[in-house]
């Protein structure tokens, strides 16, 4: 167990400001109001003397956008002793529990398996995650449906729980402990009353979120793989794809989606191999040379996205690849709601 500290708002801001000399520091910032009338938050670089903005729920961007990019260099032709140059170190404030849970999928894909993706690993090793408890939720939030709590319990370096005019700071890793020790003037051991104060706030949010989710009657985590297997031939896929415009937004905004194409790019003096995000909702995603395409129809592609999340990852990692952040629901111009797709399958299989 690591220690638990307390820091005041002003101290946290000074701490973050001082970190800027050694790290690139990101924090949440309020975005201009959008049509949902909910305030949205986005990550931005923390400028000199700028205060940390506490985001009560997750940012618009998925955490993966710090580790993989829409397009990035993978290699050069031909550099036999090509080295991967370590990048600068980064601290991200404002990461939420769903982000951490979703990011487990990215870690599984890029850090495990037959080979380790060193591009990803270097970024991961050079990034410190300062997460924080949710104190509110968006309409689309449904982490609890996947047994993910709205406050991080693992996977962070430091976690901030807001209390009065400051934060209870939980340390989650040796790296986090080291960071606190390096700036110990900003942290004092937390009192038991402060710790229990935070617990109370957490409990309050959980019961509010439960109340929000209960009438939605969401499918249960342990039933979802069965839905994929038994619902493979249902007309749900056909029905929900009707409004799909094949934009790929659901994939790109998803914290667990990881598909990319290893493409080529002409460049002087050396041609490049690039990793480009790809979407299984694109018509050519699975097409092979000669024209055969196992995912010709939009309904097949919608089903492919779901079976990847709720069947493949349950088989291969033991968990579904959804963290209940609801980003795919918000982003979809066709208003395709992942919760509704699952509920429709469940309803049809029951009836």
């Amino acid at each position, binding site marked *: 167990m690591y220690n638990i500290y307390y820091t005041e708002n002003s101290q946290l801001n000074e701490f973050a400001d001082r970190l800027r000399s050694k790290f690139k520091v990101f924090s949440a910032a309020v975005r201009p109001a959008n049509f949902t009338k909910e305030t949205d938050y986005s990550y931005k670089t923390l400028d000199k003397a700028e205060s940390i903005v506490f985001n009560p729920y997750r940012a618009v961007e998925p955490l993966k956008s710090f580790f993989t990019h829409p397009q990035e260099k*993978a*290699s050069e*032709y*031909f*550099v*036999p002793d*090509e*080295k*991967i140059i370590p990048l600068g170190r980064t601290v991200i404030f404002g990461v939420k529990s769903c982000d951490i849970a979703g990011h487990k999928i990215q870690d599984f*894909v*890029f850090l495990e*398996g*037959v*080979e*380790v*993706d*060193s*591009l990803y*690993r*270097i970024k991961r090793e050079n990034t410190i995650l300062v997460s924080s408890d949710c104190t509110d939720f968006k309409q689309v939030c449904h982490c609890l449906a996947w047994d993910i709590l709205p406050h991080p319990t693992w996977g962070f370096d430091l976690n901030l729980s807001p209390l009065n005019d400051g934060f209870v700071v939980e340390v989650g890793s040796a790296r986090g402990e080291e960071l606190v020790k390096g700036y110990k003037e900003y942290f004092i051991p937390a009192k038991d009353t402060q710790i229990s104060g935070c617990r109370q706030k957490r409990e309050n949010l959980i019961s509010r979120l439960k109340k929000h989710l209960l009438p939605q009657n969401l499918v249960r985590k342990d039933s979802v793989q069965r839905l994929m297997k038994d619902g*493979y031939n249902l007309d749900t896929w056909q029905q929900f794809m009707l409004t799909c415009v094949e934009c790929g937004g659901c994939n790109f905004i998803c914290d667990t989606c*990881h*598909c*990319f*194409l*290893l*493409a*080529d*790019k*002409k*460049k002087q003096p050396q*041609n*490049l*191999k690039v*990793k480009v995000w*790809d979407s*299984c909702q694109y018509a050519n*995603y*699975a*097409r*092979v*040379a*000669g*024209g*055969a395409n*196992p995912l010709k129809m939009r309904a097949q592609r919608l089903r*492919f996205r779901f079976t*990847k999340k709720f*069947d*493949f990852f349950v*088989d*291969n990692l033991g968990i579904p690849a959804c963290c209940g952040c609801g980003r795919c629901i918000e982003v979809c111009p066709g208003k395709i709601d992942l919760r509704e797709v699952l509920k429709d399958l469940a309803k049809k299989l029951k009836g």
Partner: protein
Amino acid sequence: MNNIYRPTEAVLEDIILESPTIKTFIIRPKEPFEFKTGQFIELTLPGIGEAPFTPSSDPNIKDKIDVTIMNVGRVTSLLHNSTKNISLGIRGPYGKGYPLDKFEGKDILVVGGGVGLAPLRSLLFSLFAQLDRYNKVVLRYGARTPTDIIYKDSIPQWAKKKKVDIVTTVDVGEPGWKGNVGLVTTILKDMPVDLKKAISVVCGPPIMMKFVTLKLLELGFAPKDIYLSMEKNMSCGLGKCGHCRLGRYYTCKDGPVFTYEELKDIHDIWD
């Protein structure tokens, strides 16, 4: 740190015309590059694009790799139009090859369709190199027309080997063709194989693999004894990019060779 996406440079040393649409490209990697039969590689035109292929050469030859390619897409058509001595990129090898140790002492039925004979040629070379380890090798090969048959000069040579039995067929004959006419499934009868100790290896277009698999099951082959080479659009080759997912597997790292036993409960495997 090792970059898993880095291509190795290779020189295109020679090009052999196999049929009007198929050529064999002989490449010489500039760094040591070894593969096991049945594993695949990604072959790249630097700056243009890459595609997955299973080498068709003997894995025991370490300095050169043959890749037999049909002109069907963007990368393959550019390859077909290129000249000798250009520089290519190669990544891999990827996936699991044919499990030769499981074939020991067996009657090995190899069924190929069209350019699907390419990866099988690599397998045949491996089998021929140690024929005493296996009971016999039976090849059944079908092409669209006599002109489309690949490795035309080699097939009669292979047929002369002891313990090797070969029958070929074409879907549509041509004037002067005296051989069999009919789909490859029509020559899967009265074969000199002992089902009690036989395994089969199938490679060809998906529709051919489907009907051959059904035929083999009908003949009494167990699903675990039917080895299939699955065709998917592998991109990274390492189980990371997502493209070649087949149910709970990635074709690139869990295959490309699967037994029918592994695939039989997965939907739409032949699409």
